[in-house]
């Protein structure tokens, strides 16, 4: 069969060919709301906050701060010991004055050759 004309969709007015039972939309909101489940998870089972639950975050925070404090204290302790050692070394090297060394050398019965030999073979 030869077609009379080509079908063009925009030559047809869009029309909704569906219907619904009488009064369907009037009662739709009511029907949907009636079918909704209880939101127990949201309100009915709202968790009761006990005193322990209330103070728990503070305890955890305090424990964390204590931990951090001890870590810092330990780190500072090690650091201060190292510093003390360094200070001691400095004190040891500065405690001997040139005059003391000179007098020590004079009384140490060390001649120039021995000093020269000592310095050359120091390493």
């Amino acid at each position, binding site marked *: 069969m030869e077609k009379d004309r080509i079908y063009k969709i925009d030559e047809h007015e869009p029309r909704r060919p*569906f*219907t619904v039972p009488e009064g369907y939309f009037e009662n739709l909101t009511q029907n949907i709301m009636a079918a909704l489940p209880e939101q127990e998870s949201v309100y009915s089972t709202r968790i009761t906050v006990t005193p322990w639950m209330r103070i728990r975050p503070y305890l955890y925070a305090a424990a964390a701060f204590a931990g951090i404090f001890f870590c810092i204290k330990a780190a500072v302790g090690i650091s201060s010991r190292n510093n003390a050692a360094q200070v001691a070394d400095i004190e040891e090297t500065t405690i001997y004055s040139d005059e003391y060394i000179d007098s020590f050398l004079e009384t140490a019965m060390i001649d120039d050759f021995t000093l020269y030999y000592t310095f050359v073979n120091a390493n």
Partner: protein
Amino acid sequence: MAMMAYDERRILDMLHEDELSRHRAFEAIVRNFSEQLYWQIRHMVLSHEDANDILQNTFIKAWTNLDSFMGYSRISTWLYRIAINETLTFLNRQKVTVPIETDDEGEMSIADRLESDPYFDGDLTERQLQEAIATLPDKQRMVFNMKYFNEMKYEEISEALGTSVGALKASFHIAVKKIEEYFNNID
């Protein structure tokens, strides 16, 4: 109880208030969107009973997942997405995309089903149009229905489907061509 006017900002606030406010806000949402969502679903599944079931499920899902809706998108977009997912799940499960013509096993064509449907009042051309639409892939069919029957703007469809306006225009154009071709191939 007085009917609440639809004010999206106020409704979003009420959804985070007490149980009664939450209930009233949701009721306003249902009243505002149920009909347009119904038609969107109905055009996809064709049967009133199926459309009604999917619509109910859509709102139940929205209600039970109300806490997950943070208000980053419009309520309509959120609802459309739930409705689209529910509809596509239904179509996949029920295989509503049944053969277009009556096959050897005697399955009814969409035109036959619509002819016997008490809630379909279209003529032959409108039945054939539904058959032609049913040949489209699901998403293309959805775009076509949203644009052609529901007269939604491309921007609105874009929000609901998460597809660019350009892609939607192309999809609609292809759908129209396929439908016209379907009609022009009818004996």
